[in-house]
Each structure stands twice: as structure tokens, then as C-alpha cells.
């Protein structure tokens, strides 16, 4: 069940320029799954709304969460100053999360771009945990440059292919360039990243006739489905809104690519 709680900072470090790795002690972890997110509340009262940040990892004991975020404004700048022992208000777990089970026994692409990469860590972990011999995880991650944060960690769950915009590491280009260059194949795709990347993945999946579960981003206010701020156009009339709009914060953030107009 969603709750707003006070969590305690276990640790925080800057793992790449302006990208922070924050572990929070909270029992919300017990209910959290890959692809879900939490709302993190700034302390300063001039910035009121929760910052939606996807869950990067859930500690085995269900008592701690990890988020990896980039400084994008006043709120995240404030978070970057959090130190061990500090308290921070969070709300969650929010959203539907990735259907990890859809990856079992299959050749799976985990595709992440930039700050869309963190949720792939927990997803890789969940798929790996339940996987059988037929399950093959291949992570294709797109970065700006040589700061390939989390790529090593993803290596623990399967082969990792890196694409960088400046070509400093791996394939020069984006994740699509990488799968073509390496001639990679999959039966199901899980992806999170910038919209152009998700659009490319959607058309690629359609062309290959495979499912693609993509995690969407949008300006959010309430984060719990009440304000209708963060909607995405849907192919079919949505069960809740009764118009062609689904709420990214609650019906998503993960959608099967074919179900949404992006």
C-alpha cells in the first residue's frame, strides 16, 4: 500500500558527475518492485512537490531502497546534499513496475538510456533470480560519454553492451546502433530512457513482432493518480479515464509500447 514515510539515509555517493547513488532505510522496500518509483520530498518549502525517482535496487531484507538520480533542479540538488543519518520524506511504492515474469525463459533485452538506466538494475536482478537456463539477459545501455555508471553492476546479471554518444566506450551512437552493430536478437524488451530512444524501440519491437515494455516519464504532481497531470495517449480508451489517456504515475510508468501513442 502506498504511504508517505520518513526514511533515513544509509549512504550517498556521487558515482558520476552530477549523478548520485542514494541508499534509504525504509520499510516501503518490502513492497517495491523493479520499475516502480518513489516520490522524494525536498525539505525546502519553496519546492513542494515530490520528485519521482525510479527504484534502482531493493535490499534483500526489504528494509532499504536504492535510487540513482541526476541533479536536474533545486530539489535534486538538495537531495545531493543528504548525508548518512539524515532523514528524508518519501512516498511509495508508486506505479506498476516491469512485468519481470514476461522475461522468464526468454532472450531479454534490457535497454537503458542515461538516467533511465538505474531501474534496469533491479529488473535484471528480479529476472535473474527467477530465471531458468533458457533465460538470457542482454543489457544494452546508452551513455553520453565514458561515465558508464552502473554498467559494471549490470554485468553481474548478463552480458552488457554499451553505446556512447561520443564513441568513447563501446558502440558510437545509441542503443539501437549497438544492437544492429552487434547483431543482437531478443524475444522481449524492457526499456527506460529518453523519448526518442523509446520511440525507436517501439518501432523496432513492432517490426520484429516482439513485446516491448517501456517506462515513461512526464511532469508529475500528485504521483498517485489523482491530479491527472501525467497522462500519455493510449491506443484504446483507458479503463479508468474513459478517454484515450492513461496515468503514467499509476497505470504506468511501464506500458507495453503498442498500447501508448508516443
Amino acid at each position: 500500500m502506498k504511504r508517505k514515510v520518513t526514511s533515513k539515509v544509509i549512504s550517498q555517493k556521487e558515482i558520476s558527475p552530477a549523478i548520485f547513488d542514494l541508499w534509504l532505510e525504509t520499510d516501503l522496500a518490502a513492497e517495491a518492485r523493479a520499475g516502480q518509483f518513489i516520490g522524494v520530498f525536498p525539505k525546502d518549502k519553496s519546492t513542494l512537490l515530490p520528485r519521482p525517482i525510479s527504484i534502482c535496487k531493493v535490499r534483500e531484507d526489504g528494509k532499504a531502497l536504492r535510487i540513482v538520480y541526476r541533479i536536474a533542479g533545486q530539489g535534486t540538488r538538495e537531495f545531493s546534499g543528504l548525508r548518512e543519518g539524515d532523514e528524508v520524506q518519501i512516498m511509495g511504492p508508486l506505479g506498476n513496475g516491469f512485468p519481470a515474469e514476461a522475461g522468464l525463459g526468454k532472450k531479454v533485452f534490457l535497454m537503458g538510456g542515461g538516467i533511465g538506466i538505474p531501474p534496469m538494475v533491479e529488473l535484471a536482478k528480479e529476472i535473474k533470480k527467477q530465471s531458468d537456463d533458457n533465460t538470457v539477459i542482454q543489457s544494452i545501455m546508452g551513455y553520453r560519454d565514458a561515465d558508464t555508471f552502473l554498467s559494471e553492476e549490470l554485468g553481474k546479471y548478463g552480458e552488457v553492451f554499451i553505446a556512447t554518444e561520443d564513441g568513447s566506450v563501446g558502440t558510437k551512437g545509441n542503443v539501437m546502433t549497438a544492437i544492429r552493430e552487434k547483431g543482437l536478437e531478443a524475444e522481449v524488451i524492457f526499456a527506460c530512457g529518453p523519448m526518442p530512444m523509446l520511440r525507436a524501440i517501439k518501432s523496432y519491437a513492432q517490426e520484429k513482432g516482439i513485446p516491448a515494455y517501456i517506462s515513461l516519464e512526464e511532469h508529475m504532481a500528485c504521483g498517485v493518480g489523482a491530479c491527472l497531470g501525467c497522462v500519455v495517449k493510449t491506443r484504446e480508451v483507458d479503463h479508468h479515464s474513459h478517454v484515450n489517456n492513461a496515468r503514467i504515475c499509476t497505470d504506468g510508468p511501464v506500458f507495453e509500447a503498442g498500447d501508448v501513442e508516443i
Partner: protein
Amino acid sequence: MAEERKLGISRENHTKSSSGEQKKGVPDLRTTIAGVEFKNPVMTASGTFGSGMEYGEFVDLNRLGAVVTKGVANVPWPGNPTPRVAEVYGGMLNAIGLQNPGIDVFMERDIPFLKQYDTKIIVNVCGKSVQDYIDVVERLSEEPAVALLEINVSCPNVKEGAIAFGQKAEALYNITSELKKHAKQPIMMKLSPNVTDITEMARAAEAAGADALSLINTITGMKIDIYKRKFVLANKTGGMSGPAIKPIAVRMVYQVAQAVKLPILGMGGIATAEDAIEFLMAGASAVSVGAMNFVNPYATVEVLEGIEAYMKKYQVEKLSDLIGVVE
């Protein structure tokens, strides 16, 4: 209706009328708007609380004086393109564009959901033409569980002119008197703050037979991304809400309370019990928590408990002893 109207006329009398029953020492939080008695004055601002389903996970809806629903129209509305929301200093902008499933789904799903709870139902009604409003008002007449209708004539984010009803006294007078002919429940006109003289609007609504007023709706604002050189909202402008606008809202509630006899549902940036009491003292008979639900999903109940604590601490017997007492 006539009887309800009469009761509704004085902000001071109607709570007294029934407060006798309350037991000693326990503050009487009841309040009345247009003859409808609410167990307490804490409500939700339309559009910030859906129909209660989402926040029911956080707060016990039975605690609320009323749930004021998201605006509902005669047919489903898709609303505006995204981005629809943006944060601003001490608040937010929204340009949802009144996305709603339409009155049919609302009657089948939202009303039955709310009927499960011991709280009053206030339905916010929106439309693009007077006939749209009439259609919704008439459908709602079938439903006795709906206590009050809040008429949204002040949404700044809908092109089709709904706002025009809320910014021209004559237009407000016309739609109000028209809806009074069709409404079974008392009607509460929601006023726009984007006007030169809010009291002129309030008087027009009162003259046209409105039973109550709710204010303020959001204030039109804009945010620009200076790095993209673009409007942050797809709609360019959006309605501003949050603590930042509270002083403007309190001023308007006071001005309206001085200008008309109608009971007022006050709102605009309420985050704490102190904020709520400010609105009550300015002349509101009840208050709505809006954007702050997004910041603190427990805000409604905390505001309610804070009002009760204030009344106990300062020996205020009944809520009506706080309404409009500022000097």
C-alpha cells in the same frame, strides 16, 4: 430549496441551530452551507482529490466534512496535451483541461464509491455551454446522495469559454439563474480570482439565486524554460495553486464575505490548520485543501485535527464562533 436557501443565508446562524446536541468540552466542528450540514469544515478542492479513490489509501474518507469531486461534464473530456503541470515557487501550475470520464461513468462508478463513506458528496460541474451544465445538473438531480453542486465557471485552462462565465458578471448571472431552474440540490458557484473586483462577481451570483460561493479557483500563471526557450506547459498558461497564493485567496474571501450573505467555501493554498482558520476568520464557513494533498496526502485530516486542537486550546465551543471574526 427555499428553506435551505434561507438557512444558507447567514454564515452565523445555521451551525448554532444544531450545535446544542454536541457534548460539553468537545468542540462542535459542524458547519452548514446552504442548509446542508457538514460534520466538519474540511473538504477537498475539486481536481486535487479525484473522487477520493486515490487518497482513500492515505486518509479515512469518513473523516472529511465532504469530498468535492473532480469536475464532471456531460460527456468525457480528454483534457489538454502534456506537460500539464509545473512546479513554481511555493506552489504549482496546472493545465489539466478538465479531463473527465463524463457524467455516465461518474454516476455509475464515482457516486457509488463515495456513497460507501460517511461524508458528504459535493460534485463539481463543468461544461462548455450552458446546455452542457444543464445536462449534468439534471442527471445529478436524480441522485439524492449528492448534497451540493459546485459549478465550475472559472477553470482558466479550457479554451471553450467556461472561464468567460466566471469573468463577466452578466454571464455569471445568466448561467447561475439558468442552473437554478434545473438544479434539485443547492448550487455553489466557484469564483475565479482572475477578475478586477471579486465582489462584483459574488453579487451577481447572489442576485441570480446562487446558494453558496466557493473561492478561489486558480490564478492564471506561466512558467518559461529559459534553456529550451519554451513554455513549460503545453497550454502555455496554467492555474496557479499552493501556499504562494494564500494571501490573495484570504483577501478575496474576506471581500466576498463583506459583500454578500452567501456562505463561502474558502480555499487557496491551505496547508495547515492555521491556514484554514485564517479562511474561517475571513468569513468562510468551510475550507478545501487542494494542491497540498499532493505534498502531504494526510493534509486534510491533519488540518481537521489542528482546527479541533485550536478550538480546544482557545475554548472555542463551536466552529461558527470562528467564522468571520477577524477585526
